[in-house]
């Protein structure tokens, strides 16, 4: 046995931890400005971040075999919770997403962002890859059940993310390109059928999603204001605390989903490049860990978690810069808010666990 490094013993991946830390700091700095220089807000967010970091480190201590073992049960548990939400869920903002556990309210769909890729990875891990057609079918069912349950709440954004998390495992597992293309065609073909069965108001929502300028009082307002904020920032930005758009309260949701616009206004293109570098570092570290994982479960799960992390970033930035429809997805580790942060940190904990529990056998 090789001598174990400090990181191995503590089950912490220091490069990843460092990058996450940097992101959190950036997040708090931007939040101070975006939240109208409210130090209490920053303080509360810092406490949430610390709690999430502790959760991450605890998760990292669990051996991957254990995580693999629990994947099925967590998945089943998650499905039961989703059914309970539909039956007894609290209605928040017109959708049933929350389960009131008396002590705290809990959003089971958030949990599914982790358990679905865990389940799929666990299912495929002991099979020889690339997956056979019948296995792909099983995986599709495993993904579609929770996705439909979440979509029924209705929370289309999360349903989409859960689907992406699940299918990314399938992609990494080496599903044949032909099958992938066939699934793509199937999805495209079913779109008009789904459209046919939708209510008029649902259709209206989808149309607004695709063309926000059509709804200048709702989603379109966000986009118009956020483009002004980003564009007026220029290459070097207006400087910290100097963003006029955000400070004059033109930009809605500036501390949550649209915080990237504040970042752009104050730190400019240069800041964006640096921020993307940090994100890219985390992503490449994740992919590196995935390639070097010692078992299929680890490889699949780590790749999937990393890819989903990127999807968050891409969808949020795409939305704020006006390239993608407005769906409520926060910018990972920067946006204000607690729920999605804990999910992300558990994900990083799993990645760290898989990386630091490797055994080096000397023959």
């Amino acid at each position: 046995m090789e001598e174990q490094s400090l990181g191995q013993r503590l089950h912490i991946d220091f490069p990843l931890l460092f990058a996450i830390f940097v992101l959190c700091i950036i997040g708090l700095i931007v939040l101070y400005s975006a939240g109208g220089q409210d130090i209490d807000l920053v303080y509360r967010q810092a406490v949430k971040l610390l709690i999430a970091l502790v959760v991450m480190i605890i998760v990292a201590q669990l051996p991957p075999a254990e995580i693999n073992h629990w994947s099925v049960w967590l998945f089943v548990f998650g499905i039961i919770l989703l059914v309970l939400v539909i039956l007894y869920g609290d209605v928040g903002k017109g959708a049933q997403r929350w389960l009131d556990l008396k002590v705290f309210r809990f959003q089971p769909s958030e949990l599914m962002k982790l358990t679905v890729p865990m389940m799929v990875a666990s299912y495929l891990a002991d099979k020889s890859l690339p997956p056979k057609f019948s296995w792909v079918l099983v995986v599709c069912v495993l993904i579609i059940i929770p996705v439909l349950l979440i979509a029924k709440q209705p929370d289309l954004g999360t349903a989409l993310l859960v689907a992406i998390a699940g299918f990314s495992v399938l992609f990494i597992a080496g599903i044949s390109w032909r099958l992938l293309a066939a699934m793509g065609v199937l999805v495209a073909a079913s779109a008009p059928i789904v459209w046919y069965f939708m209510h008029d108001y649902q259709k209206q929502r989808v149309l607004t999603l695709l063309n926000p300028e059509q709804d200048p009082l709702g989603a379109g307002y966000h986009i118009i204001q956020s483009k002004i904020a980003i564009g007026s920032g220029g290459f070097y930005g207006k400087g910290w605390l100097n963003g006029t758009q955000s400070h004059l309260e033109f930009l809605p949701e500036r501390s949550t989903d649209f915080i990237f616009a504040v970042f752009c206004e104050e730190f400019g293109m240069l800041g964006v490049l640096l921020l993307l570098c940090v994100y890219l570092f985390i992503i490449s570290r994740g992919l590196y860990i995935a390639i070097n994982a010692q078992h299929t479960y680890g490889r699949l799960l780590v790749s999937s978690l990393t890819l989903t992390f990127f999807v968050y970033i891409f969808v949020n930035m795409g939305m704020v810069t006006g390239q993608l429809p407005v769906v409520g997805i926060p910018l990972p580790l920067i946006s204000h808010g607690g729920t999605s942060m804990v999910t992300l940190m558990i994900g990083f904990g799993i990645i760290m666990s898989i990386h630091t529990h490797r055994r080096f056998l000397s023959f």
Partner: protein
Amino acid sequence: MVQETILKDNEHESGLITKRVYFSGFIILLLILMIVSRVFYLTVLQHEHFTTLSKSNRVKITPIPPIRGLIYSRDGVVLAENKPTFSLEVIPEQIDDVDKLIDQLKGIISIEDSDINRFKKSLKKKRRFENVALRLNLNEEEVALFAVNRHRFSGVDVVAGLNRYYPLGEELVHTIGYVARIDEDDVKQLNASNYSGTTHIGKLGIEKSYESLLHGDVGYQQVEVNAQGRVIRVLERSAPKPGEDLHLTIDLSLQRIAIEALKNKRGAIVAMDPVNGNILTFVSSPGYDPNKFVNGIDSKSYKALLSSKDKPLINRITRGKYPPGSTIKPFLGLVALDNGVRKLNDESWCPGWFSLKGHEHRYRDWKKQGHGHTDLHKAITQSCDVYFYMLAHELGINRIYEGLSKFGLGKQTGIDIGGEAKGLLPSREWKREAIGQAWFPGETLIMGIGQGYALTTPLQLAKATASLANRGKIVRPRLVFKTSNSITNEVKALPVYAEDPITISNNTYWDNIIKSMRDVVHGVGGTAWRSGLNAKYEFAGKTGTAQVIGIAQDKEYKKDEIAEEFQDHALFIAFTPVEAPRIAVAIIVENGGGGSKTAAPIARKMFDQFMNSKGLISKG
């Protein structure tokens, strides 16, 4: 060997996964490049454009609510209009301490606790940069007082708006209904951006059922504001699309005759045109003032309305359930002819009472000494009960149910306002399910004179009468016959809905029954002969007198209570002209006594007015 293959597999697998990971990395790089180039486009290439926008800024988008469509009577009288009002509004994001602000404002303008409660509630729902109303309906003095002190309050302004007003007040409240402030239940259902500037929504009647037409589409403006948020100038404006104006089928002159007739009484009067279903009169008495509801009625007045014995809030036309009484007889006569149970000339002997074989209970006729030899014509014109006990007994409840349901009894009429009661047309199945008992023969007997379980709404009775007058053609009643647009002047006629007609074995039966109804008014010994005196035209009708439990709100039928509380309700159904009917009425006067004495003269008055105004009175 086995181990070797597994090892090989593993190697192959990890190679495959690694390839896919590299591929994903490549895609990620491409997508990040896309984001970077977009940010480059916005921050570097478009920088100047957005800088100008941000400097001149203070560009805000505010909604412009559409103007709600007006409601007119058939002859063009405005029944619902929009009156200008002023309210005091606050922009939350510009206020540091809301409570302090309210205290300061109280020094100038009176602000009630209820205002503050409502203000704080809507404060939570709106975005921080959206106006929230603190006080509504400022009078001119208050507007002036605030204008003088305006410099002291940044983020507070007087906003002019429009308020719904019903000039005829309670005369049409059961038809038009009213609008009121949007509440939480409404918010869940409505399209949030289309209602972003709207404060009121239809709650009842036409205002509710035609909400989507009346409301119109929201407009918006891009405005430049100063640092305090006050509008400096309008940059771009997209005009709202005003709601459609509605034109009611209501004939105000007839409506007023009906209101006058029911003054200080409880009851309902409906008149409809059998040809197109147009409702000409729609009166439920008493009414109440809808204007009180528009900006929220105070709880004391509301309680008074709720607890009033006269139940003014209930729309008796669509929700009042009354036994049809003898008005059911022409319909039953037709069903009996159609089924071959009676021929036109079949006679029954009426000694003044009827008993079922083997039972002692005597079912009495309203005429103690009896009608003697009675055929169908006499049974209808003189409203002989015994004839119809026997007829109902021989028809049996199944055929009665089947025949009467063709006339829409026990079913909603489908009128274009909501909240309609179904009434009740009893059947064996209904009784087994609702009461858990078998059907008794005696219950069939009293069905023959429209008593017992049967309950109809005045509107159902009017529709059934129109269908009879029409010789089987059924049209759905409607209150709105066309819409018009105040901008484009485009007029749209709304369609007439014809339902499946009633078919019977021999069409002359229609004329037989209608002739009998004509003779109720104009024949020898007709129960409504007094109302037909000196008429320059002919009309057909049927009187009814019903014993009831007021408005049966509770579904449970309690036999004991009826015996105690013996009240007569006066009913009359009628139509004219007899050959080609253009108006059919159903009149119910609660506790009004006999139908011939109280209800029929009202029909005569209405018909006189109608025939005169239409020039339908034949000369000579």
